[in-house]
């Protein structure tokens, strides 16, 4: 992602311990922001600098902000990169002009864009690739089926790049979407402030008054039993079901997802064309109605096409070349272990800590030459 955002990998700056620390700081900064976001009073009053657990987070976040700033300053000074014609993401930010004033982005905004891009563009992709690998090596029939698809479509691993062939890998896409359903990289709730006039949700007979924060938790809705059959089972086949025949008349939202909700996904399927549902009982429209790993609307993730590109290429090439198997490990995170013991978390899930982004561990995988 250093390559994509700043036109160079962070590593080529010299693999200094500082650069390795950046990943650690980034996680701490996210945790600090997420925590303070729940109670901004701690920041406004300055208390966060004095209460022990918050103080450490506050300090590590400063380190991360400084790291981000160094990347941005270095990139801004590197004009040779622009003249070379290489267009990283920062190229567009540095050359943006306000249509009215003709001025570029203010320095503070450039700095924060850099910080945000490192988190939003790197860490989320990393979590999603890890999660996809985890679910695949843990569910060997899925991995075998995926390997079959990738190896029959591509004759050489160097052919694996964006194009019609990669598009044709429908099971690959299903494996990725199913991993994002079970382990969304931003699993929490992104709060929205209701503006004057309030917000009506007729389907729930609900009026949310102005001035209130409201949102939907991605992880919770991705595991909603009324819409997802066996929500804690990883099964990419559920993504291969076709839309119900009724859907011809339905309007599509701009994100391409069915607008109308389906209320009886479970009872309905048995009467439908058996050929459509021979692989999984999942109702297509119900599944798509709850799927929002990139959020929706005009605040939806901009990096979606980039993420699909990165993950598809990374997973497809690994699977094409190597066989993989999981080394079973108990989660190292004591908090996660305690939650599993108490039944709050499902054993065998890809466990993350939700700090806006996800703090994840593993999977530990063994490789062998493809058989």
């Amino acid at each position, binding site marked *: 992602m250093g390559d994509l955002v700043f036109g160079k990998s962070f590593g080529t700056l010299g693999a200094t311990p500082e650069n390795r620390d950046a990943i650690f700081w980034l996680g701490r900064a996210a945790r600090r922001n997420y925590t303070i976001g729940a109670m901004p009073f701690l920041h406004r009053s300055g208390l966060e600098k004095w209460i022990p657990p918050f103080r450490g987070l506050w300090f590590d976040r400063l380190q991360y902000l400084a790291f981000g700033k160094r990347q941005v300053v270095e990139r801004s000074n590197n004009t040779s990169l622009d003249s070379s014609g290489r267009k990283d993401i920062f190229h567009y930010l540095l050359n943006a002009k306000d249509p009215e004033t003709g001025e570029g982005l203010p320095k503070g905004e450039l700095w924060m864009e850099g910080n*945000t891009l490192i988190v939003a*563009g790197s860490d989320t992709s990393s979590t999603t690739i890890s999660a996809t690998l985890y679910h695949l090596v843990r569910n060997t029939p899925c991995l075998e089926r995926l390997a079959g698809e990738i190896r029959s479509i591509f004759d050489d691993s160097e052919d694996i790049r964006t194009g019609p062939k990669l598009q044709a890998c429908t099971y690959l896409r299903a494996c990725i979407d199913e991993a994002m359903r079970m382990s969304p990289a931003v699993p929490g709730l992104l709060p929205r402030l209701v503006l004057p006039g309030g917000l009506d949700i007729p389907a729930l007979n609900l009026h949310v008054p102005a001035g209130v924060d409201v949102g939907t938790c991605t992880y919770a809705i991705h595991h909603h039993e009324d819409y997802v059959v066996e929500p804690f089972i990883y099964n990419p086949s559920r993504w291969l079901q076709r839309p119900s025949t009724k859907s011809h008349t339905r309007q599509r939202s701009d994100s391409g997802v069915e607008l109308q909700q389906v209320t009886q996904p479970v009872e309905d399927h048995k009467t439908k064309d058996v050929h459509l549902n021979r692989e999984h009982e999942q109702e297509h429209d119900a599944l798509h109605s709850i799927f929002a790993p990139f959020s929706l609307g005009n605040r939806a993730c901009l990096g979606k096409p980039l993420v699909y590109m990165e993950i598809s290429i990374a997973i497809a090439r690994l699977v094409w070349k190597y066989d993989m198997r999981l080394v079973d490990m108990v989660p190292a995170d004591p908090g996660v272990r305690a939650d599993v013991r108490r039944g709050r978390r499902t054993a065998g899930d890809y466990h993350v800590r939700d700090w806006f982004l996800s703090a994840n561990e593993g999977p530990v995988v*063994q490789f062998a030459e493809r058989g």
Partner: protein
Amino acid sequence: MFDIVFQAVENAAGSLATSYIALAAPSLVLVFLLTASLHRLYFHPLSKHPGPLFARLTPLPDLYHAYRGDKHIHFFHLHNKYGPVVRLAPNSLSINDPAALRAIYGHGANVQKSETFYHAFRAHPAAISTLLATEKAHHARKRRIMGQAFSDGAMRDLEQYVLKNVRLWETEVGRRVKVAKEEGKSWTSGVDMGKWCNYLVFGEWV
């Protein structure tokens, strides 16, 4: 302001007034807490929505779960217990329903990003990124710029760098497979792919 108070206290020192203040201050705090609690439980616009008592009274449970990093798990269980609409903090609702997903996040929704939450991410008040912009017009301006960086054409330019990093990844795996083979084993020792995925996206091989 404080001078006056101090002076007043000093003047009254040794007199009955001190004990009055000593009694009045905690009582005032108590009265304030009681009124605030009553308001949040019975008169607040969200008072009719269910949720844990402590969450309806203070943002502290939300703070605790944010710090612990299990908000997603917590919300999942809250909705199982209380239904589709839950009051997760005095002034916040979580709604677990696809209709709400569209109504809240879809185009044209009468909302903006929460200032309470997203302002906490800013390094200083003017350090605003596209992700963090709460004001709608400001976000629209920034989004237009950022949109260019993620256009189809831009993606094509970027693919070579993704490929470069994935090839590095494969080379590292390949090296381990070779080592295992030389030792007469078909499987490599375990590789922590969580770490490797970080290396992949950060382009950092150390």
